[in-house]
């Protein structure tokens, strides 16, 4: 690792200060305590203010931003200053932990602890009190609605990445040949990435909207097209099992831009000489694409596809905001999890579903770490 060369292994002791006298040391300790108490008081006052319901909202928001942004800078500066006050012998051994410490603490609280906790919960009853063995997992793999959600999720995992990556690849290849306007065309495809699922859901409700006869005119785009073609309007989101496909369209719409941008960067990185050599040898444009471009960007395609498969595995909001999933048969696994935690009030089942999700992602985790180690060995 090139990093180690600059490390404190060559730590110079030249900046050693004269040892502190006793009174100065006491003064420093006293100052530290006073500052710490003052800061703690100030913080508790501020958070009390932020929580109060009748305070001016704009002011609360402003204070929140200042405290949040300033607080984290102050945290590191303060800890670093405390380290500076330590005896020089320990200083450089402690400092690295001051730098990585906050990250490690937050990660253990917010990721490591929950994983362990969820695994424990998945073996307990609905209120998380008594152990019930594998009962929750049995539910996950036998309940009708759960099985439907697993079927649907598998559909999401196959279809969404396949379609989004195909369109993204085709678009990136074609846009690469535009004389001008490539950037503009690409950002139009990319634009839905900046929109929230809640926003996208509304956007697409406007497209799928259906009103039965006698309940007003149909203002949804698709039914507008149907009427224009002289057909009857269709209740798109109630057509089992096709409604699953219609929901997947939303995710394809949102994610294609991502695949397109990443693949486009990979295509541009294919060396010119190879492409020209192939053309000189008489390869058609399609052959160049299939035999040269695709193989050279294959690693990128794999990474993008993997990422999208994981996203599809965890899809939740699209189906959640589009209405009652059980009556329309559009359940997905992550949505079932939220359902059992919040609406079904059964933390055991919810946790069991979460564990199943987690186990499904573990192979990717292994691949991830392996890839990192390979990169590390190249460095």
């Amino acid at each position: 690792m090139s990093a180690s060369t600059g490390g404190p292994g060559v730590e110079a002791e030249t900046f050693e200060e004269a040892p502190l006298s006793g009174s100065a040391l006491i003064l420093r300790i006293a100052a530290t305590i006073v500052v710490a108490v003052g800061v703690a008081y100030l913080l508790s006052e501020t958070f009390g203010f932020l929580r109060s319901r009748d305070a001016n909202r704009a002011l609360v928001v402003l204070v929140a931003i200042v405290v949040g942004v300033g607080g984290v800078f102050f945290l590191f500066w303060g800890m670093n200053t405390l380290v500076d006050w330590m005896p020089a012998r320990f200083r450089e051994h402690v400092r690295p932990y001051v730098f990585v410490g906050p990250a490690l603490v937050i990660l253990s609280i917010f990721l490591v602890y929950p994983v362990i906790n969820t695994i424990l919960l998945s073996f307990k009853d609905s209120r998380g009190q008594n152990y019930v063995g594998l009962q929750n997992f049995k539910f996950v793999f036998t309940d009708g609605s759960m099985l439907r959600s697993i079927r649907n999720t598998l559909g999401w995992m196959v279809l969404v990445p396949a379609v989004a990556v195909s369109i993204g690849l085709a678009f990136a290849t074609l846009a690469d040949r535009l004389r001008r306007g490539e950037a503009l065309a690409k950002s139009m495809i990319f634009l839905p990435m900046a929109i929230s699922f809640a926003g996208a859901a509304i956007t697409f409700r406007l497209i799928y909207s259906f009103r039965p006869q006698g309940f007003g005119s149909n203002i949804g785009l698709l039914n507008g097209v149907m009427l224009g073609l002289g057909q009857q309007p269709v209740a798109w989101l109630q057509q089992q099992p096709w409604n699953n496909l219609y929901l997947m369209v939303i995710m394809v719409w949102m994610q294609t831009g991502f695949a397109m941008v990443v693949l486009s960067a990979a295509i541009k990185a294919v060396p010119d000489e190879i492409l020209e050599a192939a053309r000189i040898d008489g390869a058609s444009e399609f052959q160049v694409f299939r035999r040269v471009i695709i193989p050279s960007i294959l690693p990128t395609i794999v990474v993008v596809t993997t990422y999208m498969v994981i996203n599809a595995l965890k899809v939740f909001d699209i189906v959640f905001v589009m209405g009652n999933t059980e009556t329309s048969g559009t359940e997905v696994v992550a949505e079932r999890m939220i359902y059992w935690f919040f609406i079904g009030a059964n933390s055991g089942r919810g946790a069991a579903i979460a564990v199943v999700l987690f186990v499904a992602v573990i192979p990717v985790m292994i691949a991830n770490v392996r890839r990192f180690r390979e990169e590390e060995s190249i460095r």
Partner: protein
Amino acid sequence: MSDTIERPPVVSVAPAPGARGSVGVGEVRKGGWFVRITILIVVLIWLIPTVGVLITSFRPADLVNTTGWWTVFAHPFRIASWTLDNYRVALDAGGLKNAFMNSLAVSIPATVIPITIAAFAAYAFSWMEFRGRFILFVAVVALLVVPLQMAVIPILRMFVSGASFFGIRTFPDLDLNGTFLGVWLAHTGFGLPLAVYLLRNYIGSLPSSIIESARMDGADHFTIFWRLIVPLSVPALAAFAIFQFLWVWNDLLVAYVFLGGTRNVQVLTLALAGLNGSRGETWQLLTAAAFISMALPLVVFFSLQKYFVRGLTAGSVKG
């Protein structure tokens, strides 16, 4: 991008020597009509949903409910078919103004905090020597795949009533639920693995000679980090900042679980979801609200597009 959407993966797009820039040098046969028309059709299809929302949000309620939005193209300049009322109603009665401010109060610190913490950690992982450096770093990267949904419930319980492991109290009851601090910390936790990974890639690839000479001149780690590393890492920091900001701004799940849906504290996505459920057929308000929630992400996206794309092809930031 939202709850179920993981943060972007790390994709290595190593630019090969002699790679083409964005402007071809006339070597490729530039496409003819087929290419241009295909691109145009795809772009139009992709824009239709957004255009529909935009147009609907400026139409009066009675027209929205009787005719499709595409009918405006028949008489685009008839004044009576356009209005700004929807936005006024959504902002005031719909509570969107409040929600917009709450979203800011959540998103800005929830972007700055993880980046700062990750940058310090990335610097330590790259340029400081300490025990367990490699193991700790691999552990951080491994956490990339913990599904957000899996972490939410235990954290919520911890916020509400503290945490205990096998009966031993390990975390005090801080009463963090429903506070901004709680949401900031949650978003920080979920965003850290990727931030540390990306930033370490970048900071670790800075030339070691710079850091060494700074140390020769007697600068300590804190000064080197603040005066040298941060300015040099602006592209990587900006790229991640944009991601994190858009992710937090568009997030529904974390805000819903940790901040709650009461009108006082709810963020934009929650207000939107609420409108979506309770006023299913008030399209003119829904679309106006949707567009208000999209406005800031779109501005951020278009003004910082360069960094955004660079962040997506991260790994090549290694440069």
